């Protein structure tokens, strides 16, 4: 402390002689030392007070007491600043943990897009924040069926991510891609209803494609309707299915429907991040999607997904508002 005091007196006395920029600069470098040595604000003021006393002689009582007052209140101020710093450090630790959790989540939830000759599948899923609230999972048995679940967890962050793992393990437990969509939805609903907090809901669209008979069977739990494009009629249909969200009531029955896919037909499954634009409320987003897709329907499924993403992103001024997920199955 003695050394710092002497140094400060020198710098202050130089400055008092001629108020030069150079002395101010030296003063700033001195403060850097104080920060490194963890000198508290009240200490700094005390150094200053003593330096002034040294240079000027005994201070008027009035000024001396004013300094003492400042020292006193600065004790408090210094503590608050310290507390703030230590909270920032904690926050940083949490951020690092979050990053690790995200990596684990991505690894755990990884799904591979099935490659088959009979059906062309593409997908794009982009999160707004680190953790994706949308989730796509593909299941496949030995060449007879390929199934897909497109989910959107209502709720964000860590709880949503944990909920998603549950959906995945629920699907894994069902094991076979040939299960009926209505059955899959009923089982998942039971699992989620039992184990998840009341404020957490999941919407899910489940589709199963029968490779030999070209039949697409689907069911939905409160999910954004999928699009079905009939190439022969050159016309879009909404695949609506009014099932309750997963996790609200224990015993819910889900309906399933089926359509026959012919060459050139395709199904577009998506989450509401694709259809809801807050900035353009008056816009009919489903019509917009149909228009975009019409332009690119000659491309393969993956290219169609990529183009749709690019165009929608452009409409949203390159700022997604919600997690964006689209899956296309094309015959």
């Amino acid at each position, binding site marked *: 402390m003695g050394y710092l005091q002497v140094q400060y007196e020198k710098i202050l006395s130089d400055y008092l002689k001629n108020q030069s920029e150079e002395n101010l600069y030296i003063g700033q470098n001195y403060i850097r030392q104080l920060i490194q040595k963890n000198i508290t604000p*009240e*200490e700094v003021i*005390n150094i200053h007070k003593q330096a002034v006393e040294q240079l000027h002689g005994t201070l008027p009582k009035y000024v001396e007491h004013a300094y*003492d007052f400042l*020292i*006193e209140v600065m*004790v*408090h101020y210094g*503590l*608050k600043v*310290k*507390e703030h710093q*230590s*909270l920032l450090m*904690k926050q940083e630790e949490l951020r690092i943990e979050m990053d690790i959790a995200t990596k684990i989540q991505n690894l755990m939830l990884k799904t591979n897009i099935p490659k088959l000759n009979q059906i062309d599948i593409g997908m794009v899923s982009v999160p707004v924040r680190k953790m994706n609230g949308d989730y796509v999972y593909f299941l496949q048995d030995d060449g007879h069926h390929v199934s897909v679940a497109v989910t959107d967890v209502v709720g964000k962050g860590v709880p949503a991510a944990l909920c998603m793992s549950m959906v995945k393990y629920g699907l894994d437990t069902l094991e076979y891609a040939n299960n009926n969509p209505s059955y899959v939805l009923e089982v998942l609903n039971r699992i989620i209803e039992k184990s998840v907090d009341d404020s957490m809901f999941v919407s899910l669209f489940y589709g199963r494609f029968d490779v030999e008979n070209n039949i697409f069977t689907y069911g939905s739990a409160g999910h954004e309707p999928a699009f079905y494009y009939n190439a022969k009629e050159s016309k879009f249909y909404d695949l609506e299915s009014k099932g309750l969200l997963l996790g609200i009531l224990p015993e819910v029955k889900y309906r399933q429907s089926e359509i026959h896919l012919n060459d050139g037909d395709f199904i577009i499954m998506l989450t509401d991040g694709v259809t809801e634009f807050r900035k353009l409320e008056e816009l009919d987003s489903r019509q917009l999607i149909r228009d975009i897709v019409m332009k690119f329907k000659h491309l393969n499924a993956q290219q169609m997904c990529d183009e749709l993403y690019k165009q929608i992103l452009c409409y949203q001024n390159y700022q997604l508002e919600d997690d964006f997920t689209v899956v296309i199955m094309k015959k």
Partner: protein
Amino acid sequence: MSEKSIVEIVTEWDIVTARQQGRNEAKAIGFTTVDQARIATAISELAKNIYLYASEGDIIIERLEENNRIGIAITAIDKGPGIANLQSVLEDSFSNSGSSSVGIPAVKRLMDKLEIESEVGKGTKVRIEKWLKR
């Protein structure tokens, strides 16, 4: 050990008395102005906790002498509700967000040592020490 003084904390004004007594003692021991301010602030926090959470208790101020060194010890004792989770009290947190005081972790920073004992339903005892640097 010698010279013990006790301040009963019942009203908010007793917090001021405790600060004053502590400061006088710290000054007599030879603590610098800055350390006097720190000791008074620490006493203030402990006394305020008694006033707020236990409604009454004592602040005991004593001079420490041992192996050629001197210091001050303050003990805050009450028979209040006690603290259930001591661990969390010792960590920085947004306890009363926006509150003007700074809590136990800060008191620990101001002093050289802090010991806390507490039993739910029985009361709380916090002892802090600071030694004169030579």
